[in-house]
């Protein structure tokens, strides 16, 4: 990516559209490839600008709504010295035609070849997309291993939740960004702009300079030391390269009202509505939840900014539905006022009913009341996530919802006209017994029974996923359940719901859970496995029609790696974890204590309204929770409004005793 190479390689910058257009009649869903979205930025290709291609390594329908990618796309395009396009993984039918016709990965804005950009920036939200990451790099005409890239090859940069353990993909990427990307993308652009204007072709020098930026990890600047299967350490190769890389955190969301022009696709995508992020972070402390741990602390957007973003976004896009996104939107401190304000603003426009949706509901009647208030237009089913079937199990995972909470929520929903509920659960959790597993079926049956009082058509979908322990959670030391154990638990649930009329059981394939487990907590040696799976055609592993566990098992065997070692064994307190050189803001001893508390079935209430547990997320960064209200929302930080009934009390361990 030297400027000279780009200028002389001008032919590369030409659009692939004429060639692509001839192929589109032969593929499924050609609208995936034409671009043309409302809100897109179409800054023309210009060698004077630092150019980013933001790539989502899955289909257009899944990738387009991704808010992180849209935010960074706008931030780069707003810079006078930068421009950004977007690309998505082509489906297998088009990929075949592209390879046969020598068409590289292209941007949807100008259909410019991917290798003409300075940066290929990937959003990694799911481990099973790793083989698609390699495929996209390869389709771009760029060597898949970073050590094979030279002068005019683009930099491959990754961000997103998966990058909290980037070691399995460390050999394929040049740069990893940890945490919120809003600030680092600008800093990286500055460094690249300086590099390009210097006329240098010293790629290693550029990478070394980038490694000095906060929150930026350059895997090639580190040596990995092993002792047999055991990881000994990951050490910087140079004195100026940091030994620990700390995640980046935007301290005030009010400074970042993005996306300002949310993309409005021409064809149907998975979240086809306006999205406005109301806060980032979560302090409920669910112990299985990586997102909740790594995004701390809570940073709320000011209520008036939310209203403005919603009103302007609806006006511009014509959407009749807005989602207020966050990890737990009903916990937003001003949620009722914000929702009422949004509905009033919409009523003033007179262009039809507006639906406000929340990505997941709080499990109590308060959550349902909000849902009833906001779903004036189209009503969808309601979704709750109790996550576990018994109170004991929910204490272990720190999802402190009582059965009364759930049943009052379900009752409120059926009584207000909903006929379908969806309940999300995990199985394969630490210390889970068959009683806990069967509790899932019990909850499902009881919900349908409540619904029958209101409608004969009451039904409840019980959706069960296999638990995959993730880095930077208290469960990072836990040995994942085997495929056969997960299958046995699913079979228990199948038997228990077979005759339960109205209960629809759905489950995630335990084989895919294993593949996710292999990649989630692996070290750098997993790179050979991912490349092997990809070279044998294993793309789109998130898709059941393409997922193939045998590819993964074979690749592990060929690499001489043990599933038992990487997935099934419990890790020990003293062992070096592959992400120990990264800092997600959480003290390792906080996580370990929380893991021990879990095994003792001790719950830990939300720290927004209780004393600090010193997890590290605030104190280490000199920032605080940004909440508009110092008191918990109606209903308390968890559960039912009003004083707790006897017998449902949460065992509290005081933060001060720590």
């Amino acid at each position: 990516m030297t400027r000279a190479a780009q200028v002389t390689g001008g032919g590369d910058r030409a659009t692939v559209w004429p060639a692509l257009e001839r192929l589109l009649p032969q593929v499924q869903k050609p609208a995936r490839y034409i671009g043309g979205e409302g809100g897109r930025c179409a800054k023309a290709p210009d060698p004077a600008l630092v150019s980013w291609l933001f790539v989502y390594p899955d289909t257009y329908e899944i990738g387009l709504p991704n808010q992180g990618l849209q935010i960074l796309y706008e931030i780069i395009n707003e810079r006078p010295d930068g421009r950004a396009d977007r690309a998505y993984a082509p489906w297998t039918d088009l990929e075949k035609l592209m390879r046969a016709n020598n068409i590289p990965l292209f941007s949807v804005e100008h259909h410019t070849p991917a290798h003409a950009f300075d940066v290929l920036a990937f959003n990694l939200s799911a481990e099973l997309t790793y083989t698609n990451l390699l495929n996209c790099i390869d389709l771009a005409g760029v060597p898949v291993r970073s050590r094979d890239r030279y002068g005019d090859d683009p930099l491959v940069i990754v961000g997103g939740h998966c990058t909290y353990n980037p070691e399995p993909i460390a050999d394929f990427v040049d740069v990893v960004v940890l945490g919120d990307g809003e600030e680092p993308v600008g800093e990286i652009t500055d460094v690249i702009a300086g590099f390009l204007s210097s006329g240098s072709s010293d790629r290693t020098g550029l990478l070394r300079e980038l490694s000095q930026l906060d929150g930026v990890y350059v895997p090639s600047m580190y040596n990995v030391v092993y002792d047999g299967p055991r990881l000994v350490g990951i050490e910087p190769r140079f004195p100026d390269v940091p030994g620990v890389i700390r995640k980046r955190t935007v301290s005030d969301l009010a400074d970042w009202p993005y996306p300002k022009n949310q993309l409005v696709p021409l064809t149907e995508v998975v979240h086809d509505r306006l999205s406005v992020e109301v806060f980032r972070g979560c302090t409920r402390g669910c112990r299985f939840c990586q997102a909740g741990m790594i995004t701390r602390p809570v940073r709320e957007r000011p209520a008036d900014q939310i209203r403005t973003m919603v009103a302007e976004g609806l006006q511009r896009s014509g959407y009749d539905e807005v989602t207020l996104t966050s990890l737990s939107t009903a916990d937003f401190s001003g949620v009722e006022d914000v929702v009422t304000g949004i509905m009033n603003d919409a009523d003033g426009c007179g262009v039809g009913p507006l639906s406000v949706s929340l990505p997941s509901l709080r499990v109590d009647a308060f959550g349902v009341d909000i849902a009833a208030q906001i779903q004036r237009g189209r009503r969808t089913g309601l979704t709750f996530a109790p996550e576990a079937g018994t109170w004991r199990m929910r204490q272990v995972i720190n999802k402190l919802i009582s059965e009364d909470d759930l049943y009052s929520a379900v009752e409120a929903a059926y009584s207000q006209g909903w006929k379908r509920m969806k309940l999300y659960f995990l199985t394969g959790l630490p210390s889970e017994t068959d009683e806990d597993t069967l509790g899932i079926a019990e909850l499902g049956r009881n919900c349908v029974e409540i619904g029958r009082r209101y409608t004969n058509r009451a039904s409840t979908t019980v959706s069960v996923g296999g638990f995959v322990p993730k880095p930077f959670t208290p469960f990072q030391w836990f040995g994942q359940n085997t495929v056969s154990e997960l299958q046995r638990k699913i079979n228990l649930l199948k038997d228990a719901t077979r005759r339960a009329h109205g209960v629809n059981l759905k489950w995630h394939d335990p084989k895919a859970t294993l593949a996710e487990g292999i990649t989630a907590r692996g070290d750098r040696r997993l790179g050979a496995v991912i490349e092997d799976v990809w070279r044998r055609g294993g793309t789109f592993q998130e898709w059941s029609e393409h997922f193939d566990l045998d590819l993964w098992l074979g690749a592990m065997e060929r690499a001489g790696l043990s599933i038992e070692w990487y997935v099934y064994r419990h890790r020990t307190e003293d062992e070096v974890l592959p992400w120990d050189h990264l800092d997600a803001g959480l003290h390792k001893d906080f996580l370990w204590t929380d893991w021990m508390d879990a095994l003792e079935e001790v719950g830990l209430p939300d720290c927004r309204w209780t004393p600090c547990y010193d997890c590290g997320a605030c104190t280490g960064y000199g920032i605080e929770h940004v909440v508009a209200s110092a008191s918990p929302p109606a209903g308390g930080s968890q559960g039912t409004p009003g004083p707790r009934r006897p017998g449902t009390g949460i065992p509290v361990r005081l933060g001060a005793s720590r």
Partner: protein
Amino acid sequence: MRVRVRFSKNGPIRFISHRDVARIFERALRAAGVAVAYSEGFSPRPRISFGLALSVGFESDAEYLDVVVAAPVDLEALPGRLTAALPDGLAVEAATPVAPGTLSLQQAIVCCEWEIEVLNLTEAALARSVTALLEHRHVMLERERKGKQTTVDVRPALLSLNVTGPTADGVRLAATLSTDLVTIRPDEVISLLGHDARLGRARRLKQWTMADGQRLEPLAAAALRRETTHVRDLGPPGSPAAQTAAAGR
């Protein structure tokens, strides 16, 4: 008030589906501040009805939709306002109020004119194929409907076929194809023109309704006063088409 709108779909946006077009118009109407009427019920839906579907990949100068509005709209300004709210390649050309009793678009359209690009055949070869095809009194076409093979005589749907000259990559065929009773799609026409023929671009130029035995453009049909119309050629009384049409009124 019901309003009928004519719009075009050209360029790369031809690759989006009929459903996609519907969603885009719902959004564009809201963004343009048009108060669309909604259905009643648990899940209110905007009252917009589209005419014949246009297959993915085909362009058109003559697509139609009917929309019921809850408040008066300035019909003169409507095409410009909607076009401004629509993505590149979709443009509203005209709008007119729909007189009470007008047949729905689905019921009223009897045929469409097409400009079809045929690849892989010379102009002369295409002309020979077309002449030969039209000489047949019956043209049997196999179709798969819901997994079942059926054979249909599509000859009555071929109202006219004329070779009109070369395009950049092939030969242009002007076709008028019935959408009433017996129907046929442009890609099916190509399949009848011999082994080698391939479909290039296809563009719908016009859609027609019938009134007083005359072809009438759907906006003109919407503007007609009902008591003088619906003399559509319905076939013998009691035939399926006549019953459908009667039910529609």
